[in-house]
C-alpha cells in the first residue's frame, strides 16, 4: 500500500503541498481532481521521487521513498508512471520503447524483455504497431504506448497524470478504455484527471485538491454527487 503522511513540498517560496495525507490500498483506484496549480502533479512526482519533499513521509509497501538509504531506482520499478505529455522515446521503435527498461533495468534477456513488452503492447491495442516509430503515431497511440511501457516493468502500482488532457477529444476514449482495462485487471492506480465522469465510474475513492491540501475525500458518490464542502461544489459546478 501507499501511505502518504503530512507531506509538505515547496518550490522556492511557493508552498505547493501543505500537508497531504492519503492512503491507497492494493487494488484500489484513487482519483485526484482539483483546479490547475493545486499540486496534483507535484504529489505524483513526489510519490515517484522525481521531486524531493520538504517534510512528511511517503511509504510504499513499507519502504520510505524519501529516505536517503532507499534504492530509488529499485523502488521506481514498483511505481509505473504515465505523464500528461506522452514522452515516448523518439529514437526507439514501439517495441524497443516498451522493452528497454525490462532489459536494462531488470536485466532480462532481450527476448524475454521483448516478449513482455509485446504482451503489454497487444494489451493496450498496439499489437500491429510494434516496429513503428512513435513520432509517426497519434497522440492517443503514443499515450497507450507510454502505458504499455510502464506496464512492461510489471509494477504493482500505476500513477497517471492527466493522461488524456493533451489529447484531441476523439482520442480520449481509447486511452480511457485502456485505463478501464487495467482497473478490471485489479491494478492499483492513482489517477490525476479532469474527466469527472470517468473518475466517478472507475474510482474507489476521489480526492479533491485545493491549494495544496485535500479539501474533501471519499467515495465518488460522496465527493462528486454529494459534495459537503463549498469549494468542492464550486469546482464541480465549473467543470461539469
Amino acid at each position, binding site marked *: 500500500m501507499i501511505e502518504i503522511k503530512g507531506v509538505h513540498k515547496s518550490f522556492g517560496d511557493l508552498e505547493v503541498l501543505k500537508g497531504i495525507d492519503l492512503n491507497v490500498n492494493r487494488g484500489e483506484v484513487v482519483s485526484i481532481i482539483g483546479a490547475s496549480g493545486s499540486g496534483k502533479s507535484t504529489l505524483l512526482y513526489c510519490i515517484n521521487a522525481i521531486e524531493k519533499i520538504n517534510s512528511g513521509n511517503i511509504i510504499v509497501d513499507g519502504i520510505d521513498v524519501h529516505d536517503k538509504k532507499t534504492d530509488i531506482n529499485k523502488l*521506481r*520499478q514498483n511505481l509505473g508512471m504515465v505523464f500528461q505529455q506522452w*514522452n515516448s*522515446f*523518439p529514437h526507439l521503435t514501439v517495441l524497443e520503447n516498451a522493452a528497454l527498461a525490462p532489459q*536494462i*533495468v531488470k536485466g532480462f534477456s532481450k527476448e524475454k524483455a521483448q516478449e513482455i513488452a509485446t504482451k503489454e503492447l497487444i494489451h493496450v491495442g498496439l499489437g500491429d504497431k510494434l516496429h513503428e*516509430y512513435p*513520432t509517426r503515431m497519434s497522440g492517443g497511440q503514443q499515450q497507450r504506448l507510454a502505458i504499455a511501457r510502464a506496464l512492461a*516493468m510489471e509494477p504493482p502500482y500505476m500513477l497517471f497524470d492527466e493522461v488524456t488532457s493533451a489529447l484531441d477529444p476523439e482520442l480520449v476514449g481509447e486511452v480511457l478504455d485502456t485505463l478501464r482495462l487495467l482497473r478490471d485487471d485489479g491494478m492499483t492506480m492513482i489517477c490525476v484527471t479532469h474527466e469527472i465522469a470517468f473518475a466517478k465510474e472507475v474510482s474507489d475513492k476521489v480526492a479533491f485538491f485545493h491549494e495544496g491540501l485535500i479539501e474533501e475525500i471519499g467515495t465518488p458518490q460522496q465527493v462528486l454527487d454529494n459534495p459537503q464542502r463549498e469549494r468542492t461544489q464550486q469546482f464541480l459546478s465549473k467543470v461539469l
Partner: protein
Amino acid sequence: MNNYEFHWNVVFDAFPQLLSGAFTTVHVSVLSMLVGIVIAVLLALGKLSNNKVFYHFANIWIEIARNTPALFLIYMAYFGLGAYGIHLSPYLAVFSALVFINAGYLAETFRGGFQSIPTTQYSAAKSLGMNNIKVYRYVILPQMFRRIYHPMTNQFVWSILMSSLGILVGMNELSGETQRLQSTSFRTLEFFMVAAAMYFVITKLVLFTSSLIAKKVFKGELS
C-alpha cells in the same frame, strides 16, 4: 578572345603529388575534427557549468572561434606565435586554427543538442527505474547524437574546405601542393581545375558516406 590551349599531360604526370596533397587535406581535417570534438565536449560542459572561471573560459573560446575569420586564426598561429619564438610548421598552424574553430562551433552544437532534449524525457526514463548512467546511455545521448549528427558532418566538410587556406602559409595540402606544382609548370588553370574537382569529389564522398551511415544507424525514424 584569346585562344587558351589546355595542356593536361603535365597535370596527369603530377597526379601522385596531387593525391598526396589530397591525403594531407583529409588528414588535417580528420585530426582537427577529432581533437576539436574532444575539446568541444569540455567547452560545452563549461558553458553548462556553474563554475564562473570554466564558463567564461569556454565562452571566450567559443565567441572568438565563431566571430573571427579562419585566416586570421591561421595567421595568429603562424606569425603571431612565431613572434613569441613558437614556430609552428604550416601543418601545425593550420591544424591548430582548425581545431580552435571546430571546437568553438561544435561546442555550441553540442550544447544546443543537449538543451534540446526535453526534461520530460529524463522524468520518463527515471520513472522506469533507470539510474542516471542508464538515462544518459539509452535515452538522452542517443537522441542528442541524432541532433548533432548533421551539424557535425557539415563542420567536417567545412574543415576540408577551409584547410585550403594552407596555401597561404605554404602547407603541402591539396591547395598548397597545387600551387607549388603550377608554379613550376605554369599550367595554373589546369592544375586548379583538377584541384577543384578533387575537393568536390572529397566533399561529396564525405556527405554520401555520412548519409549512408545515418540511414543505417537512424533507420526509419523521423526528425
